[in-house]
């Protein structure tokens, strides 16, 4: 199992219906002085050699393209071209090949090369080289120990070790030295302080011994300490970097463009953040409105589910206000921007998310808690050893210092530094193979301790798309006729109807009246499908229903319901059996919320919740000391996802919500929630076991060190065996299955 395979990558894009229309990436194109244009796109769905070749050759064949290179690991595609090829050509070419894509805003992606990771890897390589070579000398020194080896050979091997250890430790130790120095300057001590002290003091003591022609040198201990700790540091960094990268990609995906109608009538693509109040924007079906706006021309239905959690679409006409983030479903409309993008609803939600995320960053990680206990104890012990030997024991400074250094080396937190990242990386890899993307480093630790689970309704417990209501048995002939009309529309009800009817023809002259319904003729008879007013002429319009009428026959009502996810009932029951308190938070009306609450047995349910209401409820629960897992998908869940103790969202969720959540799970089922909780609890107990092992080891080895009995040989054995032990314990978490690539 390689590192890359255990790490998460950006989730598959949500299979949203209807699919968002292609975004014009023109505003994201950068043009160099020599006339070369460059564009970065996030491509999803490319996983294999074939995809790579198809995409690169497909785009390379476009006129004027100089290069197209896809990074298969990150899914970022970079194209460069000359001439006047429009940027949309790449989007449509990729869509044609079957890979959805979105432009990557270079401003938000700003040169996020993993420099820290590279430098850690370089340090790791140097430390590995140095510790390996010094260990070869040390084995000679230990086995010959005084008897077979003359002083000249010993001195030579000591000097050779010094020549490697000194430059290597200064190079490879920088991450620790710099961090320790920063902490000391800020007036506190972190884990890196005893590490740096142990490395520097043992190097200095060993050099002194070497110069004086002494018997023992700890060069191997100092360097292998760095090597082991750097492994832990690198794993931890990779984990956080990949999580951060997934979050950054999600933010970049929000860099949506809009089409502005210039005074002359020309339509130009602009970036959402350049929209001014009063701009007229053209919004086609399938597009999302980027700012709060007012409709000027046209009428259409809007999907507000991600904003408010309402499952039925809203019909809006001229003069009506539309919140930013609403998805246009049926008709082409012209809107006038009423707010800038940073003042729009979606941006308010983003601000609430930022506030929530801040409050959560106060969580203290397990390893840091252990470190805050550990650091003062170690320093006191080392100081006591020195004073004990020097003052009470009457030993010379050299011996006293040597023993104090041995204490620092023996107690050095390899187990802590290596064990927790190892547990986490195994847990994250295991969850990734089960379709759960872990987005925050300490999310697993928090998930292990929850006592309450809050669910959103629409799109989380339910699939978030309507289906013909159960018990709604249309005569097959009528269903076939209705489907002939439904097939021309992207309205969710029409899609559900067409799905039920299966493949078939569409009425030749079917015409969609935006916001009303569809009319056409089947076998010479005029038919209508749509809202009640459109079909029957009655004034009242219903929620989750449409009507169908052939000519002057009696109109028929077709009801829809938002279907529960297949294993929702089972998952909710399992959670209740585990003794967790369950809460249903819905932005939807009372009736559908109650229906779901009763179906799944929620006693505690809340309907008509605004994003701020949800966040407030979770905060008050947090203030009572409850640790809440929030599971939600909508933009309206964003703030509550961010301020809950820990949060999850399905892969179909709004990008902002995925960015706010700690975990993102894929697929139709909710079972990954249970799997994630199981892995999180196991990871926590492995981590605690590892702390216990480390403590046990210290209890055994410390008295030897304090008593001055630790030779470099014992130090090396003790250190590497304790590191091996905790790593093996961490690996027990793996499920033994081969990772899927």
């Amino acid at each position, binding site marked *: 199992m390689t590192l*890359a395979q255990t790490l998460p990558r950006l989730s598959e894009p949500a299979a949203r219906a209807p699919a968002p229309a292609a975004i014009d990436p023109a505003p994201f194109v950068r043009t160099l002085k020599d006339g070369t244009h460059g564009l970065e796109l996030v491509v999803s769905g490319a996983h294999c050699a074939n995809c790579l070749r198809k995409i690169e050759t497909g785009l390379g064949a476009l006129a004027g393209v100089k*290069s197209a290179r896809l990074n298969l690991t990150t899914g970022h595609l970079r194209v460069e071209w000359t001439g006047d090829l429009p940027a949309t050509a790449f989007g449509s070419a990729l869509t044609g090949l079957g890979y959805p894509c979105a432009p990557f805003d270079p401003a938000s992606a700003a040169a996020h090369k993993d420099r820290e990771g590279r430098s850690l*890897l*370089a340090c790791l*390589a140097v430390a590995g080289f140095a510790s390996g070579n010094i260990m070869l000398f040390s084995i000679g020194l230990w086995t010959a120990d005084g008897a077979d080896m003359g002083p000249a050979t010993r001195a*030579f*091997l000591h000097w050779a070790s010094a020549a490697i250890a000194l430059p290597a430790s200064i190079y490879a130790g920088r991450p620790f030295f710099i961090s320790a120095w920063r902490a000391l300057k800020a007036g506190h001590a972190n884990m890196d302080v005893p590490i740096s002290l142990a490395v520097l003091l043992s190097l200095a003591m060993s050099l002194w011994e070497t110069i004086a022609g002494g018997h023992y040198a700890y060069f191997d201990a100092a360097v292998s300490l760095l090597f082991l700790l750097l492994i832990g540091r690198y794993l931890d960094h990779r984990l956080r970097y990949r999580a951060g990268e997934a979050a950054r990609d999600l933010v970049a995906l929000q860099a949506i463009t809009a089409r502005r109608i210039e005074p002359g009538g020309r339509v130009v693509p602009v970036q959402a953040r350049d929209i001014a109040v009063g701009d007229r924007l053209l919004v086609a079906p399938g597009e999302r409105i980027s700012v709060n706006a007012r409709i000027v021309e046209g009428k259409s239905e809007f999907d507000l589910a991600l904003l408010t959690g309402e499952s039925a679409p809203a019909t809006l006409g001229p003069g009506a206000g539309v919140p930013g983030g609403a998805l246009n479903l049926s008709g082409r409309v012209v809107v006038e921007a009423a707010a800038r993008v940073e003042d729009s609803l979606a941006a308010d939600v983003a601000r609430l998310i930022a506030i929530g995320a801040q409050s959560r960053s106060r969580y203290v990680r397990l390893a840091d808690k252990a470190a805050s206990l550990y650091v003062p104890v170690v320093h006191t012990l080392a100081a006591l050893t020195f004073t004990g030997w020097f003052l009470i024991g009457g030993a010379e400074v050299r011996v006293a210092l040597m023993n104090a250094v041995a204490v620092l080396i023996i107690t050095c937190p390899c187990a802590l530094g290596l064990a927790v990242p190892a547990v986490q990386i195994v847990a994250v890899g295991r969850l990734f193979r089960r379709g759960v993307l872990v987005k925050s480093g300490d999310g697993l630790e928090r998930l292990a301790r929850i006592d309450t689970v809050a669910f959103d309704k629409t799109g989380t417990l339910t699939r978030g798309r309507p289906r013909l209501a159960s018990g709604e048995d249309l005569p097959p002939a009528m269903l076939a006729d209705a489907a002939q009309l439904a097939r021309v529309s992207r309205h969710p009800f029409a899609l559900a109807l067409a799905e039920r009817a299966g493949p078939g023809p569409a009425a030749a002259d079917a015409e969609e009246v935006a916001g009303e319904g569809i009319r056409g003729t089947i076998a010479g008879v005029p038919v209508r499908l749509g809202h009640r007013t459109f079909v029957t002429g009655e004034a009242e319009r219903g929620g989750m229903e449409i009507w169908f009428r052939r000519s002057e026959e009696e109109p028929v009502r077709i009801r829809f319901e938002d279907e529960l996810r297949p294993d929702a009932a089972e998952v909710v029951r399992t959670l209740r059996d585990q003794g967790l308190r369950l809460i249903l938070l819905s932005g939807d009306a009372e009736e559908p919320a109650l229906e779901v609450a009763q179906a799944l047995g929620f006693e505690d349910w809340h309907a008509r919740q605004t994003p701020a209401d949800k966040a407030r409820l979770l905060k008050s629960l947090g203030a009572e000391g409850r640790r809440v897992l929030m599971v939600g998908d909508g933009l309206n869940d964003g703030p509550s996802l961010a301020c809950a103790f820990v949060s999850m969202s399905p892969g179909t969720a709004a990008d902002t919500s995925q960015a706010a959540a700690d975990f993102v799970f894929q697929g139709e089922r909710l079972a990954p929630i249970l799997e994630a909780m199981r892995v999180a609890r196991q990871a926590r107990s492995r981590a605690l076991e590892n702390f216990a092992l480390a403590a046990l080891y210290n209890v055994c080895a410390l008295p030897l060190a304090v008593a001055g009995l630790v030779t470099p040989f014992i130090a090396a054995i003790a250190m590497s065996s304790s590191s091996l032990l905790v790593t093996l314990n961490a690996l027990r978490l793996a499920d033994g299955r081969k990772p899927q690539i």
Partner: protein
Amino acid sequence: MNVLLLLVPAALFLGLLGLAAFLWALKSGQFEDPHGAAARVLDDDEDDQPPRDGETRSR
């Protein structure tokens, strides 16, 4: 034991060559896209030069 005076530097030199090769590979972007590298091997038209920073390969 005088042979050590020859063998130790020789061993270190060989080790350093390996280290230098790794650091060079790291710097030249060989680890930027492990999945892609595994897949590109299978492509017959593939130009196997890694791209440098800020530079892309021309086809």
